């Protein structure tokens, strides 16, 4: 009954999205606002209805039968709601409606016409995706012959990471819908100015903050829990999340120019459209089955065609609107090549070039395959040779830009700051001379950025704005040091270990004690005891009887300097294959990204606080 209630609410949501669209794009501002808030309420009811089916293990609901199991722990019953295509679409749509409601309610939206139009465009987005969900992937459908028990959730996904990674990521991915809607609305109203920049900023900040956190959480999940032994693989779907992040980062910076100087209007609008286009492209890649990746859902051509149609309609529509309306948004504020504007333009240039390069690498194999030109894959070597080469100058630039004044450099007051930075960087680089050139250069760029960020903060007025800048740039520097550290000093040992065998790895001693059987709530496992510098670790090999599948649970010992990672392989009697890896400075990587996300948080704070 409760499930039918959710289903009904979801159908009503389709109607309400239509109301929101018509009212917002027509001339009923108050109705549009109420519809947006109601739509969010309806989506919440629908989402709760489906969650209820999962919590109560109602296997007459096909989606639950296919993806849940009565013996699954409660946490995974709930997070299993979005561990499959249909359920995750409901989450997607609920977040879409959440941003619609936020537009209707936020007090920072000072232009009523812009608000109304934005809500209208957001309604149009909701309409398309609710229709997609209802007609091609409805999770509320029942079966007449409910199975005795469910198929269970893929054991790889039975992990607390599933509760946080997709939700945060979607908040960011879908959050850019609001930025898209506000940009499209601005093209309709024809008003893009400093006030517009202030209105869109909180939305950009939320979406960017969530996307940053979502990507970092996914990366951490792959590293710590899934035992992939790394944090980034240039997997097409990982790239799909990086694309809107890079475009969003470019947007964040061009918005600064628009806000302070009133220039880069058209470019900023274009970036807003591109950022969400990248989100939709990611959605298409994940859900259409064109890619083979660990992230993709079961394939179904009709779904892919539907999403492609939505993508073409929304993004094609926005670009067409842009083509017609953008020429009216002219600005002419001149600036010299050495100015804050110029440095931010260069930043945008590099970020968009990186976006284009990653996009090319991600789509190239698909195009080649479609044209029957051979099956290829584009992996880390491509991205290392291209993206990294563009990221390094960007890091250096990040360290200079904040010192430059707007418009033109009056006096070169920033000379001393940069000279100090250069000196400290050179001193730091002495420590790692003789290492591979790329890593020395990367380390230098990161040190440069960190040092200059600290000097910037000391010299600044310590406003929230400068703190946000500092956190973002400093965090990026730290993260890069972490990335280089793991690449530079990673040590791995694979051996067949006898019980009681001890060995040393780097500065650590490892003792393999032996393996015993243990039993979990819905699995049985072989669990090793490994003593690592006095601490006891328990890597496991689990077997899930319901789905007859195995998972490897790595055991990890964390410290500030390095992470030790032990994976249990197969056995010959009492002798077990043991893979031990040292990943140095991973903590810096996560710490860096935490600071970057925090920068987004501070930005949100000051963009909401403004009078």
């Amino acid at each position, binding site marked *: 009954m409760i499930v039918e209630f959710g289903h009904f609410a979801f159908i009503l949501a389709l109607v309400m999205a239509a109301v929101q669209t018509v009212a917002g794009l027509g001339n009923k501002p108050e109705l549009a606002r109420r519809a947006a808030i109601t739509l969010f309420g309806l989506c919440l009811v629908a989402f709760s209805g489906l969650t209820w089916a999962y919590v109560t293990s109602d296997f007459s609901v096909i989606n639950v039968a296919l993806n849940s199991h009565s013996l699954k722990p409660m946490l995974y019953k709930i997070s299993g709601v979005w561990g499959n295509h249909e359920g995750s679409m409901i989450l997607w749509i609920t977040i879409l409606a959440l941003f619609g409601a936020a537009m209707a309610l936020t007090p920072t939206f000072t232009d009523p016409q812009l608000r109304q139009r934005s809500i209208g465009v957001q309604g149009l987005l909701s309409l398309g995706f609710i229709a997609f969900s209802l007609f091609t992937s409805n999770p509320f459908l029942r079966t007449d012959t409910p199975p005795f028990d469910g198929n269970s959730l893929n054991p790889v996904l039975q992990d607390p990471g599933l509760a946080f990674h997709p939700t945060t990521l979607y908040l960011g991915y879908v959050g850019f819908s609001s930025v898209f809607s506000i940009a499209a609305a601005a093209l309709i109203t024809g008003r893009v100015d400093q006030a517009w920049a202030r209105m869109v900023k909180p939305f950009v900040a939320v979406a960017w903050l969530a996307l940053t956190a979502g990507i970092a959480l996914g990366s951490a999940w792959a590293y710590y829990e899934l035992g992939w032994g790394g944090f980034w693989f240039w997997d097409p779907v990982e790239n799909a999340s990086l694309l809107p992040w890079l475009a969003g980062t470019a947007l964040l910076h061009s918005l600064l120019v628009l806000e302070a100087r009133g220039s880069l209007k058209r470019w900023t609008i274009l970036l807003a459209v591109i950022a969400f286009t990248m989100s939709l492209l990611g959605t298409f890649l994940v859900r259409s089955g064109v890619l083979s990746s660990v992230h993709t859902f079961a394939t179904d051509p009709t779904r892919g065609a539907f999403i492609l149609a939505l993508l073409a309609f929304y993004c094609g529509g926005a670009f067409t609107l842009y083509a017609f309306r953008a020429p009216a948004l002219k600005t002419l504020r001149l600036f010299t090549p050495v100015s804050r504007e110029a440095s931010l333009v260069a930043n945008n240039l590099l970020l968009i070039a990186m976006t284009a390069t990653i996009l*090319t690498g991600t789509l190239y194999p698909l195009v080649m395959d479609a044209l029957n030109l051979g099956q290829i894959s584009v992996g880390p070597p491509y991205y290392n040779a291209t993206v990294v080469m563009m990221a390094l100058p960007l890091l250096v630039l990040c360290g200079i830009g904040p010192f430059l004044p707007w418009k033109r450099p009056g006096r070169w007051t920033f000379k001393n700051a940069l000279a100090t930075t250069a000196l400290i960087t050179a001193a730091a680089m002495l420590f790692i001379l003789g290492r591979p050139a790329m890593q020395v250069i990367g380390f230098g760029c990161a040190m440069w950025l960190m040092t200059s960020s600290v000097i910037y903060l000391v010299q600044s007025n310590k406003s929230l704005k400068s703190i946000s800048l500092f956190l973002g740039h400093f965090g990026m520097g730290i993260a890069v040091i972490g990335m280089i550290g793991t690449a530079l000093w990673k040590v791995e040992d694979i051996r067949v270990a006898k019980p009681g065998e001890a060995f040393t790895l780097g500065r650590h001693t490892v003792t393999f004690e032996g393996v015993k059987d243990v039993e979990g709530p819905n699995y049985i496992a072989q669990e090793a005891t490994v003593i690592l510098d006095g601490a006891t670790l328990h890597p496991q090999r689990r077997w899930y009887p319901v789905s007859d599948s*195995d998972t490897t649970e790595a055991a990890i010992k964390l410290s500030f300097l390095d992470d030790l990672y032990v994976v249990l392989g197969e056995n010959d009697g009492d002798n077990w294959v043991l893979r031990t890896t040292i990943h140095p400075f991973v903590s810096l990587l996560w710490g860096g990204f935490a600071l970057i996300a925090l920068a987004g948080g501070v930005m949100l704070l000051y963009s909401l606080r403004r009078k």
Partner: protein
Amino acid sequence: MTPRARARLMSILVVVLGLGLAAGFALYGLSGKITYFHSPTELASGALTDKQMTRQIRIGGLVKAGTVVREGDTYTFIVTDNASDLMVTYRGVMPDLFREGQSVIAYGKYDNAEQIFAASQILAKHDENYMPAEVKKILGPQK
């Protein structure tokens, strides 16, 4: 030049520079750094040039039932596309979903003389109902 014309020229230069940069890097990257996928049949027919053999490639197919042998931490097994067989060696811990009779993709180098593929990475699929697009293609309509 008027300031307006200069500003326009600047913006055009910037865009051209950006696109050129991206295109240049992408082409450079794609020219030498992509990984080709080959079926066991292609490898058995000796289609690989010496230059291709020095590069990392990807192979895929089904893990032939009953061929997985493990000695300590080293695995050897046969990957088949139902037309030809390919001997694969791998040292390390196998991914969770590596199974006999299931599809697999491996990344590594092929030795034409020995006819052995030395895998540096084994990519097993995410769940048991799923088959990588490449493998599906080479296996053809029978599956």
